[in-house]
């Protein structure tokens, strides 16, 4: 799984076939709110992402799964360096992302693109589509205005938009069309990797499938490496080769999609799967009891312990490491 051939345009890194390598990635937000609250109540730190490590081979898609607040969006933003990391390392195609200087960072921006969750706020309302997509071309390529316009039209057609809409503003489009614009913008710099943060979850169900199909088709055609964030296991199953389950800022389980979804090892993954609605299957869902952990100054131990049906004393006494149980299938649970 980790030895797939490099996609066109990627630099094979020293580490076998791992195109993306994340090590010990950590992001803390200080939400103390000033000196006085700090003196009165002590520091309050949200451990949004805690010691996350994984590899992804070129051309593969990782489905990053978890409920809201699990830190999956933050993890993606830190990997793309849209926000600074607290600790850890990210290597993408030979670039040391978190330590790159301005020049290298520009190359990384060209190679790594982001598709945001809400297409109603991710497009500048004052820019026509021509500029929205064309800015990326201006930044990364040397093109004449005419060439640029032709390329924008190509990109629009590639994502299923009508070329004669090129001079419209974002507000003249529906949610699905806006997300297509955002995808075209991401493709403009000819990236090798795309991070998509729940790109379909804010759209109507009927449109969701179209956007997912589009992204999956583009990924296959262009040989893109992808991180696909979702809370929907059905979506993860459809788009990804690998699945990583996140909870309370930590990775709970990671492995090949089929294996994780067929034989989940972690109790949290199991409960996620049991709570998943199936079309036409009339069995009772078993929702998970309790509320998700809010990782403010979290104690040591497994973040899932307080909701876990099989917890023991040892679960809350030390942090739990990811352990490989079968080839490529890792789980962070001392009970399995």
């Amino acid at each position, binding site marked *: 799984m980790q030895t797939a051939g490099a996609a066109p345009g990627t630099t094979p890194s020293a580490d076998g076939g791992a195109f993306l390598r994340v090590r010990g990635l950590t992001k803390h937000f200080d939400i103390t709110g000033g000196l006085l609250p700090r003196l009165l109540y002590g520091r309050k730190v949200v451990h949004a992402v805690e010691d996350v490590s994984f590899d992804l081979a070129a051309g593969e898609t990782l489905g990053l799964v978890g409920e809201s607040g699990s830190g999956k969006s933050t993890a993606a933003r830190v990997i793309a360096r849209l926000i600074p990391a607290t600790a850890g390392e990210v290597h993408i195609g030979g670039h040391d992302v978190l330590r790159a200087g301005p020049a290298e960072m520009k190359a990384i921006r060209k190679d790594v693109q982001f598709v945001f969750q809400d297409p109603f*706020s*991710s497009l500048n309302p*004052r820019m026509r589509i021509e500029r929205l997509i064309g800015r*990326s071309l201006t930044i990364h390529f040397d093109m004449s205005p*005419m060439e640029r316009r*032709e390329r924008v*039209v190509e990109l629009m057609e590639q994502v299923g938009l009508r070329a004669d809409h090129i001079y419209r503003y974002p507000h003249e489009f529906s949610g699905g069309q806006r997300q297509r614009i955002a995808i075209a913008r991401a493709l403009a710099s000819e990236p090798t990797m795309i991070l998509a943060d729940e790109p379909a979850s804010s759209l109507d169900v009927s449109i969701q499938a179209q956007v997912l199909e589009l992204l999956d088709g583009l990924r296959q055609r262009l040989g893109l490496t992808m991180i696909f964030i979702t809370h929907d296991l059905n979506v993860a199953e459809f788009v990804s080769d690998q699945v990583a389950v996140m909870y309370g800022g930590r990775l709970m389980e990671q492995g090949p999609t089929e294996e994780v979804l067929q034989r989940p090892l972690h109790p949290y993954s199991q409960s996620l799967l049991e709570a998943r609605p199936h079309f036409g299957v009339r069995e009772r869902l078993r929702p998970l009891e309790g509320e998700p952990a809010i990782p403010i100054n979290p104690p040591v131990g497994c973040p899932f312990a307080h909701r876990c049906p099989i917890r023991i004393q040892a679960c809350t006494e030390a942090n739990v490491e990811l352990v490989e149980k079968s080839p490529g299938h890792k789980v962070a649970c001392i009970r399995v």
Partner: protein
Amino acid sequence: MSEAVAVPAPPQLPSSYVAAWRTIRGIIANDRKAQIGAAILAGSIIVAIIGPYIAPHDVEEPNVAIRLTGPTLSNIMGTDHLGRDLFSRIISGLTVSLLVATGAVLIAVVIGVPLGAFAGYQGGWVDTIIMRIMDAIIAMPGRLLAIALVAAVGPSVGALWVAISFSSVPRYARLIRGGVLAQREREYVEAARAIGESSGSTLLRYVLPNAMAPVVVQITLNFPSAITAEASLSFLGLGLVPPTISWGQMLSGAQDYLEVAPWLAIFPGLALTLLIMGFVLLGDALRDHLDPRYHGRRRARKRAAA
């Protein structure tokens, strides 16, 4: 790019400034208040420009034979204590009034907007220092400061520009800073970073265009205060001095003849009121449509009326 792609016709109106102008034109077309305000202002600007050519009399030529006469056919607003034509002098005063106000507003915008934008975008101690200086300026009584400044450097159009604009700089800085802070957290700003925009380009192309609407409103509402500031300074003898003609100065001179020649005060006063009304009406209408904070209030009013 291998084969010819059918590219739609080149942009007819690609500029966002044209789009902004269209928005303003649309507001004027649909709002009675804006129409009246715009008509007054358009008239004033035309008169200010062609003033010297339409003025019936020389503004300085005394004619002692007809001194302090009321409105007649040849002097439709009467004459002053030297027999000079009041109508011609009011036209000349209009030019001066607009010139001083435009300069003062322009200076305040050119200094205040970049300061506030930079403060809001940078944040941290840069923001703290800039905004505390702005607070200090706000804490000083503006008119008094202007008087002190003009008294110190002597009356001239330049001194008035600086004196009047000084106290309104913080208003622009605060306004744009608020807008920048609100826009900075929007996802399209993050998206700009994701496609590799520099931080300067992000500020200029993404944040500022979306934070400018309240500034446009503030500009139209800043004009009346600049006009009255100039008039009151000149009234006190601290503004423009003869031979430059100013409405404030005319009002000041009219005090001595209030009982025998009240038109000397009435007409400059009316002119001042009309000009200010033009700006206030237009500014009000623009605020109703452009400033999102007032939308709720407008809708509430409409609901109450229905």
